[in-house]
């Protein structure tokens, strides 16, 4: 389980988990779960396009993730946010369907992008993941205060000169970066489960933003590492354990919050 080829899996998935936990904290805070689902899924179409023209899949993913994020942000200026997200998603997927049928064969490379191949991660993937991951964390660190204010109290943010639209575009760009970085490693599916389940659980345990963000990253890390271990032992897919772990940690958070509320209620 800790043999040399697995070391890459532990390291890369650790980076992915921390990024998903940190970016996911703001995703849950802002109610952007749909965007967190749509951007990695739509970016998948970019990989199909890259395969068609023979470009690097990471480039295709990045371009489509950013284009999708821009489309969501721009369309929601003149319409409902969830409608904009849905339309951006289906537009990208429609293009993806076109790319796939023009390139003819259903590529196994595409399948591995859907589910990821976490146990087959090579050492050459460590560097790009680490660099992009560091960029995401750095962006969140720089944007932390204005982004938090704009997420919790958008009106107060506006009065302090923090444009809600600018913050939304910046956040979606960070989300796109995180998606482009994680999709080749863990697939479109794992990123979403981690980015929603872990922060949702963390917020049930604490209401202090910095603590919740750190806890979210820690929960995501534990889920991923346990999932890899469990998958290694049972041969069941990592995605199943990540999905189950995310849902269970959220359930635990809800139970704990409910239990604490009854204590407070009885004490009061």
């Amino acid at each position, binding site marked *: 389980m800790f043999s040399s080829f697995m070391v890459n899996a532990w390291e890369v998935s650790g980076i992915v988990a921390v990024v998903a936990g940190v970016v996911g904290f703001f995703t849950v805070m802002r109610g952007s779960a749909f965007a967190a689902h749509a951007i990695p899924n739509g970016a998948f179409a970019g990989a199909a396009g890259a395969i068609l023209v023979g470009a690097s899949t990471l480039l295709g993913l990045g371009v489509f993730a950013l284009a999708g994020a821009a489309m969501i942000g721009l369309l929601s200026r003149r319409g409902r946010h969830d409608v904009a997200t849905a339309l951006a998603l289906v537009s990208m997927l429609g293009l993806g369907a076109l790319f796939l049928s023009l390139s003819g064969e259903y590529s196994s490379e595409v399948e591995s992008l859907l589910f990821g191949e976490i146990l087959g991660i090579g050492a050459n993937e460590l560097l790009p993941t680490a660099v992009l991951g560091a960029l995401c964390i750095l962006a969140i660190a720089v944007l932390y205060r204005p982004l938090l204010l704009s997420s919790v109290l958008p009106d107060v943010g506006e009065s302090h000169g923090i444009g809600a639209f600018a913050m939304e575009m910046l956040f979606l760009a960070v989300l796109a970066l995180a998606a482009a970085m994680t999709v080749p490693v863990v697939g479109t599916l794992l990123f979403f489960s981690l980015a929603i389940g872990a922060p949702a659980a963390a917020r049930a345990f604490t209401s202090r933003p910095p603590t919740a963000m750190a806890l979210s990253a820690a929960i995501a890390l534990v889920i991923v590492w346990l999932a890899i271990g469990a998958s290694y032992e049972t041969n*069941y897919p990592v995605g199943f354990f990540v999905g189950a772990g995310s849902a269970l940690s959220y359930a635990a958070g809800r139970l704990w919050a409910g239990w604490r509320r009854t204590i407070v209620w009885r004490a009061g």
Partner: protein
Amino acid sequence: MSLDQSRAPAALIFASGFFGNEAVHVALGVGAAVAIVAGVVGVFTVIRGQSFAGEAFGDIGTAGGSGAFLLGIGPLLGFVIGNVIGAGAMELIGVQRPRGRDLATGIVLGAAIGLGALFLYLTVISQSTSGAAQTILFGSVFEISSSTVPLVILIGAACLAIVATIYRPLLLSSVSAEIAAARGVPVRAIGALYLLALALTVALAAITIGTILSTALLVGPAAAALRLTKSTPRAMLYAAGIGVAALWIGVVLAYDSDHWPPGGRLWPVSFFVVAIVFCAYVLSGLPVAIRERRERRAPAQEPARLGAEG
């Protein structure tokens, strides 16, 4: 997930080489029926801001379909059961609060995706062919045999019946939950019934026309229609019309694309339908944009006119 399901209808339709054969009629007929149901149900999806749930049911249903494949049950039933369980879970977590909706949908979707991965893995193991996964994800689900048509019609009719039955309280609680509650409308029960109708609609649409088109036809036409008219019944009519038109034009264009570059390969129906729906949405914003621009120019003259009248 099912990126390419809609390539199957093209193959199904045109493999025979006839545009007027029975398979085409079934596909166009069932497609139109699904587009109408999606358009009508979608108007409330847009009003209530539940597009994410609509999209999520496509993936949750796919997990249900994979489970059904494993158990040897029909895929349509698997989609329906998966989505009904999913709707129940969302309701349990707290879909009724607008802020909680996004999160509840996300949690259920994340769990369903994980289960779907497990079902696919178990299917591949038990069938010992890698083709099984592809059948579920990308595959031949579109092969609407005439025998499933009655079930499709039954589920579609059930969706329309639910929306028709709860129409007034649903509209009131969608526009203002407080006023509805004050008037004695059971807001939560109405919301749960609507979520059930949405779950059934997406199960139906996802299995017949694929998950991409399911979301596109649920959200796009309804959003465009609601920009064109303020009347909800009229919006439903427009949405159904836009959906049917987009689907039929998409099928015809896919048929023609045989001769387009790179040649010999059909362009997928889903690409055309999504492009048409997207254009319809963008165009539907034009009347409002033009009116706003006119009003922005108008205020210069407004005070003078007011002064003359006063």
